[in-house]
């Protein structure tokens, strides 16, 4: 038992938790932006899978991680366009079309993988990048500042997104459109255009999240994301539509998973108790929200299609 509390193990857990948190965080931040403008996207998981496959395949073929990341983002953005057309132009029910996108992504990413790659072939994934000075700090340097580039990107996106939402005119439009679209519309703010942008950017971030996962693991597999996208959506609610809250949620989730894995590795939990520990993050998430109780704050127009004159 005491093994767990050695500094090395704790720091390794921390590093692992941050790594595990990254795809959640990227996807959840993207979803936050979309939801802020009133669009719920339950298809994050599918977009992540397509982004992951795109990044993996591009890297496999070009040996360039950068191209891989680019492809992941583009695939996500493309799915954003599709989702935008479906939910904005065709006014489809958001929750369900999201589930459709999820199923589509799950199937097509696997299909492409089986047809184009077949046998899982490792790629050279993202190397770990040590931030000068910070990376050399004793103890925490390794845990916090020797991660892959996308980890830093994800955490930098937290203040960036906060800034966009709270300090730019675009952010003001986003909030207005997500809250009272008819008011925004009556002032000449284009509800659809604002939502197209948030959806496309949000999906691009989901694609990036998938890329982060595939490139960190340096492999692709059927259903690589394995529920990450759905948890990312839950984290938006956990974080009460605030980037910092979403980050806190992602970290809680990542750290608990890392801790559980360490416990299993070190033989602290064995056998069927593993299942109990496996539900720990879910239970904790609920408990945290019960205690903190900030269920309110959802954008009032979330999931509501906007049509002028209604």
């Amino acid at each position, binding site marked *: 038992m005491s093994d767990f509390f050695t500094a090395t193990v704790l720091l390794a857990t921390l590093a*692992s938790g941050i790594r595990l948190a990254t795809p959640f965080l990227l996807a959840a931040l993207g979803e936050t932006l979309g939801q802020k403008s009133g669009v719920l996207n339950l298809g994050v998981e599918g977009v992540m899978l397509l982004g992951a496959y795109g990044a993996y395949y591009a890297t496999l073929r070009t040996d360039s991680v950068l191209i891989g990341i680019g492809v992941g983002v583009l695939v996500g953005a493309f799915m954003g366009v599709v989702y935008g057309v479906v939910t904005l132009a065709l006014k489809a029910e958001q929750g369900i079309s999201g589930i459709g996108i999820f199923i589509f992504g799950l199937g097509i990413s696997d299909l492409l993988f089986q047809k184009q790659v077949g046998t*899982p072939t*490792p790629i050279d*994934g993202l190397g770990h990048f040590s931030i000068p000075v910070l990376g050399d700090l004793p103890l925490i340097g390794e845990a916090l500042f020797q991660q892959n580039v996308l980890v830093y990107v994800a955490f930098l996106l937290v203040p960036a997104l906060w800034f966009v939402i709270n300090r730019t005119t675009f952010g003001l439009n986003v909030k207005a459109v997500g809250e009272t679209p008819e008011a925004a519309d009556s002032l000449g703010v284009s509800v659809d255009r604002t939502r197209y942008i948030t959806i496309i950017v949000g999906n691009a971030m989901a694609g990036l999240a998938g890329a982060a996962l595939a490139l960190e693991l340096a492999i692709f597999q059927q259903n690589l994301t394995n529920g990450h996208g759905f948890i990312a959506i839950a984290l938006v609610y956990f974080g009460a539509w605030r980037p910092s809250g979403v980050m806190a949620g992602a970290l809680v989730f990542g750290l608990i998973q890392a801790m559980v894995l360490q416990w299993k590795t070190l033989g602290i939990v064995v056998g069927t108790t593993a299942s109990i520990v496996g539900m720990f993050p879910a239970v904790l998430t609920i408990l945290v929200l019960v205690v903190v109780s900030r269920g309110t704050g959802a954008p009032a127009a979330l999931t509501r299609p906007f049509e002028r004159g209604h």
Partner: protein
Amino acid sequence: GDDDEGRDPDAPIRIAMVGPSASNDLAFTQSMVDSLDRLGQEHDIEVDITDGTFVIEDAAVAIRGYAEDGFDIVLAHGSQFGGSLSEIAPDYPDTYFAWGTSADTFGLENVYSYSVKADQGGYINGVMAGHLTESNIVGVVGPIEVGDIKAYIDGFANGVKSVDSAITVNINYIDSFSDVALAAEAAQAHVDAGADVLTGVSQMTVGATGVANDHGVIWFGSQSDQTPLGEDIVVASQIYNWDYQLGEIVDDLLAGVKNGRVITADFNNGGLSMAYNPGFALPSAVRAAADETEAGIRDGSISTGYE
């Protein structure tokens, strides 16, 4: 199944397979697909595959559908399908059913079950791991504690301990056959805990081998030859060849007898074998120890300690 006169001996043997994961998963499902390919070189067969049916009820529909369509042999390639098979098989007494891995034929003549002594290859891998580890810490990334997986992992642990009982074997069941990310983190956790040798089973291990590649930690595989997952780090893999079991069933079919039984693959009957990665510079002493262990297992002088 309504042709009481038996099958036409000149027609190709029609074999259907229902598998839980993708046909090219470098693991359990692929091992059977490969074996069917090899069977096709010996016999005139016609193969039909439904893969990726992880939903048990969908698999049941497919199994019944194949039986209904008059396939000679229907393979329910996944231990989770047994429950359904036990109810379907009695309805189609003329069809040969086989499933695995398992050791249960429900007392039915037309049901064969196949299992593997995966602990044997596990033990051999373990012996090599015991010799190769310098940190004296070895890690195992397992999916779920069932059947051949548990056999392999227990055999592996015993093999390691047979070299030096002081070596720590950390075993981590991640509770999923498919969660690659979790497998990667589990491998990372082992590395963080000091492991310099890793092994793992099932399709999720592709995540773990990525970490092993990153850290130059050596890797032992099972079920399929996992060399493609790490040319530099994979030492050896235990391979499942279902050829032996398939052969037995086809022989029964051709002889027109139904003799439902448990057919167990091991190193002696060729159902299991080792594949060494030619690209890995395995010290000859270690290779010799492995060969010696394999011989001992074959002649029964070495027990894997499983069961």
